[in-house]
């Protein structure tokens, strides 16, 4: 036994010439090292298995359309219900908006009144509201929703010719306006734009009407049901003229910048002979009934088309068509009569009211978040990757603790050497305070 112990001891350094020899030994136990290595390998394997199990648990179950099958749509998740019972299921959601905190608001119409249901972006039900009871602000039939930068909410009630603004908690009314057949609403900075059957109107956030533009018709400057409006950072207004099948851009003062054709008006056949659905347009987008729209993180205009089951992307500088994403289907990642779209720049995700499939889909589109490295990083951190933030933080904390301990040890050694150099008298002196006593 003694022989074995001797083998485990190795002389590392011999120092200080003179009568006494200072020897520092390093304990070396091959058996202990082997055991520790086996433990490490076993632990790594165990953690790998546990990680695989974890990933399996996190993976959504079911058929998810991706790539060509989803026509380029990148599915993130779907929201179906506020609870597990049949009565908790979303039924034909027709409007959706991101709230400033990244949560999602969906108006749900019931028999007598409507409520707005809030979900987290991971699909968990948070709460509902519907405006103050027994007042004109109480929501009854909201057909569109918009949320301002300050969280103020704007609802249009098409059948009631009403525009309602609520406070950010949805409990108090802010202002109320009347407008014939409002069909779309958007808010940004200090402006609220509302589309109607024959044009659009611009309000400031206090509800004051700034101007109304357009008349119902087919001519240039006319509109036939504005199914979508949105604003960009410069308060330029984008208008989707659903039945005339065209989109246009206006400056804040109401002057038109451009107008482009996106398909045949009302999906009508030019010759009157082609059956419905057979109509092809010379417009590159070839849309059927363009509807709701939003500006994405790259400053592009994204338009949803319920009858084309797609999201089309346009250049906001000149209205040129960039691309089309999405296809018909019931699988997650596909659409059935999508009617409304909203964009969250923080997570670079779109929320789409997939009306025919009774769900809200959270999706991504290629190129929507911009191409800068910072934006790409933020985008990746907005997904499940952000779950790595806590471990990373822990690693940093451990590194800091380790560095600090090393620093203190070095300093203590220095102090000790100083004490030794000063001779025996120093031993009587009190400690330097922060140094470790031996």
């Amino acid at each position: 036994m003694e022989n074995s112990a001797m083998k485990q001891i190795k002389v590392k350094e011999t120092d200080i010439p003179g009568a006494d020899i200072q020897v520092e030994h390093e304990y070396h136990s091959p058996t202990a090292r082997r055991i520790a290595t086996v433990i490490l390998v076993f632990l790594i394997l165990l953690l790998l298995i546990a990680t695989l199990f974890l990933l399996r648990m996190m993976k959504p179950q079911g058929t998810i359309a991706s790539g060509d099958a989803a026509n380029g749509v990148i599915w993130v998740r779907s929201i179906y219900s506020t609870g597990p019972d049949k009565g908790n299921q979303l039924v034909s959601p027709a409007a959706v908006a991101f709230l400033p905190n990244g949560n999602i608001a969906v108006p749900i119409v019931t028999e007598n009144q409507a409520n707005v249901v809030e979900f987290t972006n991971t699909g968990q039900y948070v709460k509902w509201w519907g405006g103050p009871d027994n007042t004109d602000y109480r929501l009854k039939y909201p057909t569109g929703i918009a949320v301002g930068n300050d969280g103020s909410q704007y609802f249009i009630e098409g059948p009631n010719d009403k525009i309602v603004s609520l406070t950010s908690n949805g409990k108090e009314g802010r202002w109320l306006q009347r407008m014939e057949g409002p069909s779309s609403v958007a808010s940004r900075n200090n402006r609220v734009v509302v589309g109607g059957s024959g044009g659009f109107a611009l309000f400031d956030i206090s509800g004051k009407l700034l101007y109304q533009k357009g008349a119902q018709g087919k001519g240039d400057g006319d509109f036939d049901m504005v199914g979508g409006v949105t604003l960009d950072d410069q308060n330029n207004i984008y208008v989707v003229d659903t039945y005339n099948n065209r989109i246009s851009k206006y400056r804040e003062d109401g002057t038109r910048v451009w107008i482009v054709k996106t398909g045949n008006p009302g999906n009508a056949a030019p010759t009157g002979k082609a059956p419905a659905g057979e109509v092809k347009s010379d417009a590159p987008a070839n849309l059927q009934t363009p509807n709701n729209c939003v500006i994405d993180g790259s400053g592009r205009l994204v338009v949803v088309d319920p009858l084309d089951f797609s999201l089309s992307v346009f250049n906001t500088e000149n209205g040129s068509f960039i691309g089309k994403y999405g296809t018909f289907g019931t699988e997650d990642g596909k659409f059935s009569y999508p009617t409304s779209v909203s964009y969250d720049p923080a997570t670079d995700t779109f929320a789409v009211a997939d009306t025919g499939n009774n769900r809200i889909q959270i999706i991504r589109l290629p190129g929507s978040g911009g191409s800068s490295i910072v934006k790409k990083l933020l985008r990746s951190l907005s997904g499940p990757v952000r779950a790595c933030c806590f471990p990373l933080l822990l690693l940093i904390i451990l590194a800091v603790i380790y560095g600090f301990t090393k620093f203190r040890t070095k300093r203590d050694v220095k102090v000790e050497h100083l004490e030794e150099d000063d001779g025996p008298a120093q031993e009587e002196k009190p400690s330097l305070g922060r140094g470790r006593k031996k």
Partner: protein
Amino acid sequence: MSRKPIKKNSLRGPRKSIFADKQVRIIIFICLILVALYLATVTSIVVLGYLGNDTPRTLQEQELTLAQTEYEKGEAGPENIKDYAVALAKTGQGRRAHQILDAGDKANIEDPERQWLLLGRAQVYLIQSNYKNALQQVDKLQKALAAQYKKDIEQQKGTGNPTYLTAEGGRGDNYFTALTVKAEAYEGLKDYKNALKAINEYLSFNPTAADMLEWRGDILFKTGDNTGALESYKEAKKYNPGVSELEKKISKLSTQGQNGK
């Protein structure tokens, strides 16, 4: 000058702990860091709602949640049992699906000829790519449905013209679902002739079923009948316009046809 004494752990010192070895200490430290990082990751995942969040994310998870809720209420009829079993199978829980169907079989459920449970079992086998067993179950189901149909006709004879039985041949949803299961199982076995037979039988009752027309086109394309496939796709497009996937198929076959000419 004070000098340090020679340390006790010299040549013949007492046996030391394994932690006295620096390398061992490092390895143990790495182990602890790994465990801490893993626990932090799991905590992070749970806190951020990526795990432990039981809200359904996909259509299949949604169907499972609904079916499970109904089943757990304890009032599940044979159709609910079928739905629950199919939802389980779709989410990769085939064994549990069969257990549920077995329990349904054992329970005294009022289900003529066990139609729903047979259909459920056929669908579960189909999801598990066990095509032969799926076809066996469909055969049993079709026999049960035929017997039921005969029984209904007999019952209705005395009450005048059984008009409701003449609609769609008196066949219910189960009959048509069984046909789709049959077609899919034969397709899985690459028996396209029998798959087409099942689809055509379906279409003889529902000639405007666009998805079935498209499916027929897909199978005809696999058999090399491009003309038949194109016709079938065009027919499907009539009843389901604006579907980009269908349009792509038509355009692909049309281009091939023109090049062939």
